[in-house]
């Protein structure tokens, strides 16, 4: 404390305080820059760590895997039958599969959802355990690209048959055949925890199989692990999936990296996986789900294994991954808790933990907080009382914009008309320009609006930090240009010394005194320039426009205004609340900034006592 006191006194003595206050906008930008840099240096040597299996009980690949050539014929037999199922109705398909599962003693049931169709599942009771825990092998009939999951289904049933002959299991094994890896699987998971009669205890882990070709051979395995709403499976599960896959000789791809890039491991490749990882993490659920997302929110660790390419490894090798994973998970005595729940992968075997990557998103949050502070104290109106009308009006406007945003979020859930939303968003950006002659707000109000807006955004981004880091980083960086929007002051303030602190237009104004005849045009020009700049920034930082642009530039999965539709359906189908983060977290802030960018008139502040 004494040290702090001393430091504080030294800073005051050196006269740094006013300088620091004047530099607040720069500091804010520096903070944001720090956010970018601190995440960009993570792929450098020394910043990341090698992954390791933290839970000793897992022992991946320690036991010999027996799902080999002997099972191949069984698998082929099932596959040739399943190939004919593609055009069957789902209940025919499920009945056939159900009867196969029953042949080797699996209890099966069919969950019927009104909205999402039938899901077949079977429970194999553990020979050794007390049956309170389960592992899930999920096979969507059609995979995320809507291809018929022939290999996956054949693998699923032959693995189930293979597992049923083993006495080693201490956890129940549940095999699930859902229509798709999206809402159908999700609704089954929800039903499992709420309404189903046939259950097999709490699900510890889930593995989703995706092998959509009917061929015997494939090239490499893609592992997807991002859960909904910023959840990730325990790193141990991802680690055993990767280590088993590599142990069996296959290459692991993360975030859709193509085969020819899998061997790379340098700064740029790691940076690429890192950035793709953040993108996929933030948009998980909004992007086409792989299947593992369906298990989020129930304390289930899940990954999706997807086979890619032709030639190389045979299909039983792919089957050995879930086999060995189940053997590992079967060893667990406790829930997954040892390893990391918050991590970013830079390569299949390299990761950074939360302490390394969190500072970047914190920096964005701090940048917004500093901008808020800047709007509060870095102008002539800092001394206005805490209970002044401006503060109250600003809070009121904030509340109204919150309500408006909430209503918008609900309306577009009911009527998902993206064109309308985009038109409205774009049109409102022009309001300050169009109404520049008619509507004026007072200058202190403009600053207070900004103050509230940035404080709110900072709070939103802080609250997302832990729960959905990628989203916090994404909206933090996309919305940051908002802080560059300047208040435009028109009309001369009667007391000059009050208004000459900062901001371009005011500065030009004080220069006017020398060149009176040029004054007005210079002022007008500066104002126009600032208005156009504000307009551009407003358009860029509108949550809907911004996220659409982001998706178009950085993700080739989205076309046009697709992403807004997908955000909405992600909420409706999967309960992925990214839509609300945009609508209730970002939009109110943007609306406040929009309100603050109307032309403002300066107000003469009566000299009052200082309110620091």
């Amino acid at each position, binding site marked *: 404390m004494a040290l702090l*006191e001393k430091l504080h*006194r030294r800073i005051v003595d050196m006269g740094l305080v006013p300088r620091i206050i004047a530099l607040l906008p720069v500091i804010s930008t520096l903070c944001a820059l720090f956010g970018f840099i601190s995440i960009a240096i993570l792929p450098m040597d020394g910043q990341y760590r090698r992954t390791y299996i933290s839970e000793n009980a897992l022992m991946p690949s320690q036991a010999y895997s027996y799902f080999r050539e002997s099972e191949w014929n069984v698998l082929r037999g099932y596959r040739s039958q399943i190939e004919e199922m593609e055009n069957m109705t789902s209940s025919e398909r499920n009945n056939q599969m159900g009867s196969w599962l029953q042949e080797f003693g699996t209890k099966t049931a069919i969950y019927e959802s009104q909205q999402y169709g039938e899901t077949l599942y079977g429970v194999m009771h553990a020979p050794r355990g007390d049956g309170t825990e389960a592992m899930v092998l999920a096979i969507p009939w059609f995979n995320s690209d809507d291809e018929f999951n022939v290999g996956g289904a054949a693998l699923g049933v032959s693995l189930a048959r293979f597992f049923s002959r083993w006495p080693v299991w201490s956890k129940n094994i549940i095999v699930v055949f859902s229509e798709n890896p999206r809402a159908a699987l999700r609704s089954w998971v929800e039903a499992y925890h709420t309404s189903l009669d046939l259950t097999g205890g709490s699900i510890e882990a889930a593995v989703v199989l995706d092998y959509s070709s009917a061929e015997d051979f494939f090239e490499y395995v893609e592992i997807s692990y991002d859960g909904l709403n910023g*959840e*990730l499976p325990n790193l141990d599960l991802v680690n055993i999936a990767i280590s088993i896959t590599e142990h069996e000789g296959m290459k692991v791809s993360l975030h859709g990296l193509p085969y020819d890039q899998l061997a790379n491991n340098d700064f740029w490749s790691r940076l690429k996986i890192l950035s793709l990882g953040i993108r996929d993490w933030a948009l998980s659920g909004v992007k086409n789900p792989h299947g593992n997302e369906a298990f989020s*929110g129930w*304390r289930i660790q899940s990954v999706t294994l997807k086979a890619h390419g032709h030639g190389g490894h045979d299909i039983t090798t792919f089957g050995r991954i879930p086999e060995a994973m189940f053997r590992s998970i079967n060893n667990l005595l406790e*829930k997954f*808790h040892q390893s990391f*729940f*918050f991590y970013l992968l830079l390569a299949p075997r390299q990761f950074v933990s939360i302490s390394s990557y969190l500072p970047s998103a914190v920096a964005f949050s701090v940048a917004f*907080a500093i901008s808020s*502070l800047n709007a509060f104290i870095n102008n002539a109106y800092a001394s206005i009382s*805490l*209970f002044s009308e401006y503060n109250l009006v600003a809070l009121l406007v904030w509340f109204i914009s919150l309500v408006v945003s909430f209503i918008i979020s609900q309306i577009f859930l009911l009527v998902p008309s993206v064109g309308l939303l985009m038109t409205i968003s774009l049109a409102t950006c022009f309001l300050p320009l169009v109404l520049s002659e008619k509507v004026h707000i007072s200058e202190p109000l403009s600053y207070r609006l900004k103050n509230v807006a940035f*404080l709110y955004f900072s*709070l939103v981004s*802080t*609250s997302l930090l*832990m*729960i959905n880091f990628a989203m916090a980083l994404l909206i933090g960086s996309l919305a940051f240009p908002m802080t560059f929007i300047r208040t435009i002051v028109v009309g001369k303030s009667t007391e000059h010394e009050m208004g000459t602190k900062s901001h371009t237009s005011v500065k030009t104004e004080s220069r006017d005194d020398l060149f009176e005849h040029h004054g007005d045009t210079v002022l007008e020009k500066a104002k126009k320039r600032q208005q156009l700049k504000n307009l551009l920034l407003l358009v860029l930082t509108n949550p809907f426009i911004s996220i659409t642009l982001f998706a178009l530039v950085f993700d080739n999965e989205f076309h046009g205004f697709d992403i807004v539709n997908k955000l909405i359906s992600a909420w409706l189908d999967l309960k992925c609340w990214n839509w609300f983060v945009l609508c209730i977290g970002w939009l109110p802030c943007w609306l406040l900034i929009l309100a603050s960018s109307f032309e403002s008139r300066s107000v003469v502040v009566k000299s009052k*006592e*200082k*309110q*620091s």
Partner: protein
Amino acid sequence: MDSTGFKVALGCIAIRLAVICLFPSLQQQLDQSVEFSTPVTSFRSLQEGLYLLRNNIQVYNHGVVHHPPILVFFLSLFTSGTSISLIYAFIDGLIAYQLTKMTKVFKNLRVKSWLPGLLYAVNPLVLLSCISRSSIIFTNFFISSSLYCLLTEGNVILSSVMISVSGYLSLYSILLLIPLLGMLKNWRQRMFSVVVSALSLSILLLLSYTMSGKSWSFLSQVYGSAISFEKVFPNLGLWWYFFIEMFDTFIPFFKAVFNIFIVAFIAPFTLRYHKQPFYAFILCIGWIALTKPYPSLGDAGFFFSFLPFFAPLFGYLRYPIISALLFLHAIVLAPIFYHLWVVLGSGNSNFFYAISLVYALAIASILVDLNWAMLRIEYDNGVPNFKLKVTQI
């Protein structure tokens, strides 16, 4: 004169009723959140008590109900949920009214008289605490009534009775009797007040004794459980984490220490600020909100409702922005970290504990800053001189 108070109170009630009507399920959600409901104040356990009472089952033999008998009896008179909501809203309205009236007593306060009441009405902490039907609102009401009786009417008897009722409802607020004594004029009044409070408290206890079927079991359930922190339950306070981690042999000792910690600061605050007794009283409210075993956001909200009375001090605060940001972040992050820990399982108890420490730090920094501000204005003899630099040695 009265109309502002009535308007504020009506507004306060209207807001509460509107929120209850708009979000009918909010009550249950809040009642299950650790921030607003604690084992000793939650409406769930109160309902349990109502049920037991209505069915003539011993209320205090099951270790579930920690609400005092008279409160349980009083609420059992109302059967429908609507009437209970109305009572809660009405009591909050009364507090808002009392705040407004109290503002008028302080003549040289440059704050509009409706402001504290209005801030109370829209303060989300108090609002949500009221919606959650936490029984802390009754304690708060009697504390504010006690102040109200003394400040506006100079009624020592009523004021002492009120403070003893608040102590009856939740144990630690009886400590506020000490700063209340500081607000009285002379020793005769003080003795009188002590006697009146003791009398009314014993009447209340005797009444409870007869009401709970001539059994003293309620004493250990209502007060004993609070003092000995029987239910180690996560909350925003400083106690729970400490007692999870401790060896059993040390627990009684540290429970005593924690209790003494609460009591120890009350008298010094009162003595040091004997010239500003109202200020000492509020400081004590804040102190109890910080250190009590089962605090909720309702306590903090109530404490903050009195801060507008000290508007002249605001200029002296050294780090109001830091305190405010700390508090804001603590209350925003607390439910999230609890969710990470309990629902998602990706966090652990340390997350929530860390944020409850931030919360405590925020309240503590507000208290410390207020202390500084008051000492500073004392140094300036009541005439603000912000230019003067004073430092602590």
